[in-house]
């Protein structure tokens, strides 16, 4: 998938002008945050758990080489294989080679985000293998050839009428008389179409919410059960995931699981949390014969030790985007790549480069709500600011903006000049705006006045009034 983050502004305008998207986003804004609030309210230990979740992840990252080796050893001991991939190319090649080794025709997928990151579907299709997304939302957008717009609800940008139209266009066997007016009917239709694909698949690919070093296990969390059918029925189970998903023990996983569902959907626990360790055992009557873990780096190892290390704590719950007023205004597609919202604004520049993604960390008011709800306390605004610093030092901002900023800093460092200029400007603008009390348009302020009036200054700067008052007092 080619990123369109460069055209964020145009993407955002398109999102704002899309009435269906706006209806869908309004639903999201009233849904997820309220459910999270209720779930968090029911667990008095939630705040303490956030702090512990953060320290578990920090500890793991500080010793990531150790835990990766421990994990790998346990996977091998349980009969599985680990494929290390430095780049998306290597990850795709590893998956492709496994698929070819079993002559795979159909591959079911349980919404692995890393597969989106490396563009796996395109690669499989080019090689004559049919990837089938099985998460309902992901399946819908696969039919529509769209990228996901949300971490856990990939089709959150759609309303049910669009889903119905999508199914009618693609499901040839569907009786045109059959109603698809309700969500229930749409779910049943998808279930009926996908069931035979689950059974026909040669390979099942899932992601991992966590990797457990202690046991060499991968953990997936789903509500639909699609991930379990994906990884249980085919002969081969591939876990495509990234380095930072590691946690030391099952106990640590339990702590993070307590945070995950509550932060994501406001559930106490998701319907299915599945711990997988190796391939099927002697005597087992089902389960995959092969278990592969494809471990992607894609630059994560270089984020360690630097100002973005904390981003690697992310457990992909989506709370930051669910609570982000900017995401709620423009939707996930505006961000132009796999990851959206505040976590995407920090992660995407590190994966596709700040030159292409420079708008993302800028399109934030730093309202702080993302950090406030993050289950592992990632300082997202601070890291967006770090990206802005990179952007500034690489001179990527528009020249006019840079010039204006430099001039302003220069003046602000000269208090006498600053006060004189502010006093003059305040007086001039105040006189000009006194009649109406505000401006509808003003030269050099169109960015402001294009959407709102600019209140006029009262006419005297505070400092000039204060000087006057002091003089009055000394005269008395």
């Amino acid at each position, binding site marked *: 998938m080619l990123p369109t983050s460069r055209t964020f502004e145009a993407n955002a305008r398109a999102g704002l002008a899309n009435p269906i998207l706006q209806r869908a986003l309004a639903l999201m804004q009233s849904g997820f945050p309220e459910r999270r609030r209720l779930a968090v309210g029911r667990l008095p230990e939630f705040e303490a758990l956030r702090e512990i979740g953060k320290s578990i992840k920090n500890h793991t990252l500080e010793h990531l080489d150790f835990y990766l080796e421990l994990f790998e050893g346990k996977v091998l001991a349980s009969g599985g294989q680990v494929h290390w991939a430095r780049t998306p190319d290597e990850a795709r090649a590893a998956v492709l080679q496994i698929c070819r080794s079993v002559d795979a025709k159909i591959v079911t997928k349980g919404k692995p985000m890393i597969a989106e990151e490396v563009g796996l579907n395109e690669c499989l299709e080019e090689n004559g293998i049919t990837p089938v997304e099985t998460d309902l939302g992901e399946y819908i957008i696969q039919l529509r050839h769209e990228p996901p717009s949300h971490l856990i609800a990939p089709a959150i940008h759609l309303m049910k009428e669009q889903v119905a139209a999508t199914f009618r266009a693609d499901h040839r066997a569907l009786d045109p008389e059959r109603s698809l007016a309700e969500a229930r009917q749409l779910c049943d239709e998808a279930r009926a179409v996908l069931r035979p694909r689950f*059974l026909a698949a040669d390979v099942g690919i899932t992601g991992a919410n966590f990797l457990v070093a202690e046991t060499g296990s991968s953990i997936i969390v789903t509500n639909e059960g699609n991930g379990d059918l994906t990884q*249980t029925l085919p002969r081969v189970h591939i876990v495509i995931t990234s380095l930072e998903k590691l946690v030391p023990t099952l106990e640590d996983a339990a702590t993070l699981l307590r945070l995950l569902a509550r932060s994501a959907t406001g559930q106490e626990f998701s319907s299915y949390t599945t711990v997988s360790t190796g391939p099927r055992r002697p005597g087992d009557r*089902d389960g995959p014969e092969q278990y592969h873990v494809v471990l992607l780096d894609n630059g994560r190892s270089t984020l360690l030790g630097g100002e973005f290390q904390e981003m690697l704590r992310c457990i992909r719950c989506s709370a930051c985007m669910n609570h982000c007023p900017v995401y709620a205004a423009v939707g996930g597609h505006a961000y132009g790549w796999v990851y959206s919202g505040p976590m995407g604004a920090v992660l995407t520049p590190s994966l596709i480069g700040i030159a292409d993604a420079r708008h993302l960390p800028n399109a934030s008011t730093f309202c702080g709500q993302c950090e406030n709800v993050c289950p592992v306390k990632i300082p997202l605004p601070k890291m967006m600011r770090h990206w802005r610093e990179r952007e500034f030092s690489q001179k990527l901002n528009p020249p006019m903006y840079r010039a204006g900023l430099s001039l302003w800093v220069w003046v602000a460092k000269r208090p006498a000049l600053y006060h004189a200029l502010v006093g003059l400007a305040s007086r001039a603008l105040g006189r000009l705006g006194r009649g109406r009390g505000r401006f509808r348009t003003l030269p050099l302020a169109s960015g402001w006045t294009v959407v709102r009036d600019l209140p006029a200054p009262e006419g005297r700067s505070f400092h000039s009034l204060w000087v006057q008052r002091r003089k009055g007092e000394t005269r008395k």
Partner: protein
Amino acid sequence: MSGEAREEILARIRRSLTRGRLSAARETELRELVAAHRRNLIPARAAALDDPDRVSLFVAMAEEVQTTVARVNSPAAVPEAVARYLAAENLPANLVLAPDPSLDDLPWGARPLLRIRRGRAEERDAVSLTPCFGAIAETGTLMLISGAGTPTALNFLPDTHIVLVYADQVVATYEDGWDRLRAAGAMPRTINLITGPSRTGDIEQRIELGAHGPRRLHIVLVDDRQKAGDGEDK
């Protein structure tokens, strides 16, 4: 390729962390830390409860997520409870039973109308019945593990999944579940933590049950494993 990638990734990590490989002593320390299975903060919600209250919490939490629960006094009452559930839900009396010895001793013969197959799940199976490894009160979560007698697809393919739970299997927390698992031996291929039936909110955030997995999750909870006779439903 993978070997070279492995070495480079590990080297990059160490370079970023501005250190070499950890010392042998530090690695031993970390291994010991892992082996200690140290628990983090445990929510008080379930940990502080005695046996009956823990079971009640399990039931309450399970019912909150649309799991249905029938409580019976003794193992002997299970077949009847199953038959009654299927009738009440208008479901066929065809049942695929996990081929696990723990289900052998139940008096299935007393309900001759139940047509029972033992084995793994097939496409046509509408109702499955499985034992469980444990149950977690904290969130009303079932803990099922894969094994020769408990194939995993039984938990996902049929439209209706019935799970047999004994009250003494109900533990407080996930960590208690891990401890039981470790006491039982090696890690199974699959641990399924199941909390309610399959669901999705992917269409307009409306929760619909039965997305891909079971639409119905029903628990038959046996209060007393030892009790003989076909005790009445509570």
